[in-house]
């Protein structure tokens, strides 16, 4: 099955074919078999985390505040003007550390230790969407244009550590060598198609639970609060950090938000609360001028995630 730049590819010798049946628009979450009381969320769609407050800019009345326009990737520097410095942490750092990482939903997020083809090591974040599948960024599973001989291509392995909190691994670790992405990333290196998946050799996601995911229209996303929790490299090793606020803007392939992140959070879920469940709407991948961005879960992305979850 081909689907343009969303054509699914794998590092496995036998290509998986897409099911013929039409897929639903939304896939539901699961809190997993581990049990316990899930963390609460606020009425405006953010996780209820001690120490986290909604950004001050969002308390300004809408008529007095103009949302930043989307830094459309196809107009590049023209959108930014003269090269300014970009910060993936914008203004005050609003991230707060999650310490009860064995509880849902935090245990859905996994710290990733990536070993590239040249044995260089990297850190990233992934999130369960099913018993044996985690979503992450395409550049986590397949390296493009590294400029280093022997580094490009599918990574060698990824150690997956769900709910990690420093040296504490409440669900242990599992190593995968089984990855998915799409040709828009693996062949073209186009950041609009920067998403992928890790398939693990166990059913650990049935214990931790997973996030749902869905494809949402622009108007709905633009009035939605979103949440990101991941494993940044500027904090104590293996600690999970959270921030959340409203979506800044969207384009057909990306979602932009002023949520603080740092290197190591590539692949994190950008998720919303919907009907009491948590649903990924994008895959965090880049830091930008005034907003960070993630690969939007469009219908084509959704279809691939359903395929990879099976």
């Amino acid at each position, binding site marked *: 099955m081909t689907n343009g730049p969303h054509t699914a590819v794998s590092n496995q010798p036998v290509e998986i074919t897409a099911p013929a049946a039409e897929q639903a628009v939304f896939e539901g979450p699961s809190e997993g078999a581990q049990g316990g009381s899930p963390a609460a969320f606020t009425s405006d769609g953010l996780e209820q985390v001690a120490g986290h407050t909604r950004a001050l800019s969002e308390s300004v009345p809408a008529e007095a505040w103009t949302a930043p326009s989307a*830094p459309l*990737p196809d107009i*590049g*520097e023209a959108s*930014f003007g003269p*090269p*300014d*410095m*970009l*910060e*993936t*942490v914008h203004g005050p750092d609003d991230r707060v550390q999650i310490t009860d990482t064995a509880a849902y939903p935090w245990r859905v997020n996994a710290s990733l*230790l990536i070993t590239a083809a040249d*044995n*260089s*090591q*990297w*850190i*990233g974040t992934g999130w369960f969407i099913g018993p044996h599948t985690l979503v992450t*960024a395409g*550049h*986590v599973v397949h*390296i*493009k*244009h*590294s*400029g*280093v001989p022997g580094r490009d291509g599918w990574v060698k392995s990824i150690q997956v550590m769900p709910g990690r909190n420093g040296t504490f691994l409440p669900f242990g670790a599992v190593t995968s060598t089984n990855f998915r992405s799409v040709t828009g990333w693996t062949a*073209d*290196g*186009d*950041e609009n198609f*920067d998403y992928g998946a890790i398939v693990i050799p166990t059913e650990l996601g049935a214990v931790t639970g997973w996030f749902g995911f869905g494809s949402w229209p622009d108007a709905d996303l633009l009035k939605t609060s979103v949440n990101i929790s991941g494993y*940044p*490299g*500027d*904090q*104590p*090793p293996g600690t999970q950090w959270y921030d959340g606020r409203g979506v800044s803007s969207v384009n057909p392939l990306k979602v932009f938000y002023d949520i603080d*992140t*740092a*290197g*190591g*959070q*590539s692949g994190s879920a950008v998720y919303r609360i919907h009907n009491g469940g948590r649903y990924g709407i994008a895959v*965090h*991948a*880049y*830091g*930008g*001028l005034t907003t*960070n*961005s993630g690969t939007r879960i469009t219908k084509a992305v959704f279809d691939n995630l359903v395929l990879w979850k099976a």
Partner: protein
Amino acid sequence: MTASGGPAVRLVTGTVLDADGAPVAGASVHLADGPVPLPDIAALTGPDGRFSFPVGADGVYTVACRTADGRGARAAVAVGPAGAPPVELRPG
């Protein structure tokens, strides 16, 4: 690991060193800021303390590191058509 799909890749390279000038293994290094959107991934230094990041545009980038014992360092590096000088990060 670059946002650029084009061939014009330049490298930001460097080494994490301790106070005695010895390489530091296991330090997390990432590009904290720069002139274009950057992949939000971090490198872990190997036994030689070295790291390298591809970048797709000229400009000034900030490289930040954090060691396993919590020490950090940052440095700015200018990337031009000829590339960039190697960065030395010495966490304090």
